[in-house]
């Protein structure tokens, strides 16, 4: 543990160090991988391949308002304005290799897991083609049935074993199964602290200002398999627990009047704007679907369990699961409302949103609104529309409270 730092200070340092280390490893001739955000990084960590995450990088570029330049470059190359803006930012960065917001080295291999969407396959295929580097694809079949089938688990496990062989070929080194077990243990422990910390927001008032989830997310993506990540999330948990025990809410200067969930990715270029409008209205985003997304749990040495865990995240599950998951969140966190982000970049999240909203509302009576935005392309977001929708949500939540509150 590093002195008396808060987890937030440490988080910033860890992220800076993450990119600096990646540049150093690359400069020293080490291997660097680019990976999707919820991939079996355990294999790369075991192999000592330094891994950076284009989604993290694109989010940082977006939050620091540097996306338009890269987006323009990608569109100039022929990429449609209708495809994922993370992909546009990243494919442009791959060529420009420089951005004021943040820099990361080019990869020596590509590590892609399509449990988050099918789009990443096309995006990463292009990186692999443009840079002439190998791509390892973990193809995690979408679960149309409620449960993860044995057929899917078998296929995913087969791919993990095939990936190990390819990594041995690429690095010229044998896969160290003892180290693998250790990384598996660290990864699940870190995931557990992440989940435990985020669950503390169930307290009323929530000790967590949920927009912090967006900040801490970068680290759960890139440090799930590391000791530092593990310690960071334990520290964050302990801080939140202390706040909870003291009965502290999310803000020093304001009271949590309404508790909502945010569905979808943040609008990074408008992170502060979207936050401030909520805070102004006493709305605390206490949770999202993120806590479960990196809750990748399995037993050490259990490749079937690992395969099942990576397949189980909600974006790889059917609508029925998605609806029940949100209904559970509404009840667990005693939510007053839901904010659905109709994110122009993410067709998967968008095209079932209407049905999810209808069913969750029917089951729980929770108030909700949908607003139009985008994760990194500022052109798709209108602050005025967002504010109007939030005001409407507040009115609905107020009316509902007047009639007796949640579950009334």
């Amino acid at each position, binding site marked *: 543990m590093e002195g008396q730092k808060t987890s937030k200070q440490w988080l910033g340092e860890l992220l800076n160090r993450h990119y600096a280390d990646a540049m150093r490893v690359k400069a020293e001739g080490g291997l660097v991988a680019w990976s999707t955000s919820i991939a079996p990084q355990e294999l790369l960590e075991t192999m000592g391949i330094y891994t950076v995450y284009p989604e993290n990088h694109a989010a940082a570029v977006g939050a620091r308002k540097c996306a338009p330049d890269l987006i323009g470059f990608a569109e100039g*190359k*022929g*990429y*449609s304005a*209708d*495809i*994922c803006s993370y*992909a546009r930012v990243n494919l442009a960065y791959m060529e420009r290799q420089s951005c004021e917001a943040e820099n990361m080295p080019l990869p020596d291999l590509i590590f892609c897991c*399509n449990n988050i*969407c*099918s*789009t990443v*396959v*096309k*995006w990463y*295929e*292009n990186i*692999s*083609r*443009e840079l002439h580097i*190998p*791509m390892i*694809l973990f*193809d995690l*079949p*979408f679960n*149309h049935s409620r449960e993860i089938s044995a*057929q*899917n688990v*078998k*296929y995913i496990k*087969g*791919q993990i*074993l*095939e990936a190990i062989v390819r990594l041995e070929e690429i690095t010229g080194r044998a896969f160290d199964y003892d180290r693998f077990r250790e990384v598996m243990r660290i990864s699940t422990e870190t995931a557990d602290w992440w989940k435990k910390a985020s669950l503390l927001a169930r307290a009323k008032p929530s000790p967590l200002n949920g927009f912090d989830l967006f900040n801490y997310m970068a680290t759960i993506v890139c440090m799930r398999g590391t000791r530092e990540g593990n310690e960071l999330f334990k520290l964050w948990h302990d801080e939140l627990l202390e706040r909870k025990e003291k009965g502290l809410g999310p803000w020093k200067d304001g009271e949590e009047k309404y508790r909502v969930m945010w569905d979808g990715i943040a609008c990074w270029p408008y992170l502060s704007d979207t936050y401030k409008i909520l805070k102004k209205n006493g709305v605390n985003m206490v949770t999202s679907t993120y806590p479960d997304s990196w809750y990748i749990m399995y037993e050490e040495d259990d490749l079937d369990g690992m395969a099942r865990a990576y397949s189980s995240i909600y974006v790889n599950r*059917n*609508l*029925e699961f998605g609806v029940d998951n949100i209904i559970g969140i509404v009840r667990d966190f005693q939510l007053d409302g839901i904010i659905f982000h*109709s994110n*122009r970049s*993410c*067709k*998967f999240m*968008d*095209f*079932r949103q*209407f*049905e999810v909203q209808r069913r969750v509302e029917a089951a729980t009576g929770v108030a909700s609104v949908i607003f139009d935005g985008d994760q990194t392309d500022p052109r798709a977001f209108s602050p005025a529309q967002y504010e109007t929708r939030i005001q409407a949500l507040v009115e609905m939540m107020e009316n509902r409270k007047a009639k007796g509150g949640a579950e009334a």
Partner: protein
Amino acid sequence: MNTWMDIVRELEDAAAHPRQAVLRAMRETGRNAVGCFPIYAPEEIVYAAGLLPVGMWGGPTRGRMADKYLQTFCCSVMRANTEQALRDDYNMLSAVILTTFCDTLKCVSENWKSAAPQLGLIPMVYPQNRKSASGKQFLREELMRVSDELERVTGCRATSESLEESVDVYDDWRAAMQEFTALLPNHPRVFDAKRRHLILKSVFFMDKKTHAERIKYVSAQLRRLSAESEPRKRVILSGLLCEPVEILDIITENGMQVVADDLAQESRQFRTVAPRAGDALNRMVTRIALQDGCTFLYDESKSRGAMLVDMVRREKADGVIFCQLKFCDPDEFDYPILKEELAAARIPLLHIEIEQQMDSPEQIRTRVQSFAEMLG
């Protein structure tokens, strides 16, 4: 006795009036119909179960019922299919198989479970690691699962014998289509872009065996005809599909002929035939493993551009028209790469953005006209 032109008109008519064609095929074959979403629905299994596979490729449908489920930035084929499902246009279908190749297809399949529960939806996942041992095994098991589901929904079962027969029927049809499309470039006046498209599309609404017989008959007649002498500019189409058909008329009006295509709706259905090795399921699995240059199938070597360059050389084509269905992500990712690869090979390329329900293709007319002029 019908003349071969009567047969050509019959096929065109089937593509232009799908509902009537499907009802006729059901009557003539005694088979119940099963809807097959784009793309690579395992029709062989449907056919082997004694059912009639029917293509579901959207259409000019307008309406706002699909808004209940899908935002406006969803591709027009999926919006049209959803609209048609909500209007109960598919009431002649006993089941629907939907393959989830993209994020939109995943969502559509989930929405349809509540939007159109009466349609007996069977979602299917193709492996993207389709060349590896684990991927091939997964596909084999997935095909068996779909076969079981189909039986559960329709009561009709494919046996191993009927599946062998069915794969033979399909491979025979694929070979017939390859021969037929190879003959067309010599007859650009008779088989202009629109007619070529309609004939290729007609199979979605007919019995496969009947279609193969018709095609073989027309091919036999074509072999006897001498090639037309009027020269035209030769183009290749690439994309999901090239509709509405007005676009094809614009291509013809500007002195061009389609000499080959790389459209999911057309030649990608039949350009690969697996060798006769192993059982029927193995042949189906192998065909997918061998099918390269398709945006929906993961391809580490990203061979579509190279394939198009080869196709242009082989067909002595003058250029390529990239038909971008608006909001079709996979093609949107392929385009910038293709653009560079075709430019490096000095092959002229036209990019057109299409929607199935376009009000007026005038903007496309201007672009096609300039492209034709550029080809000289």
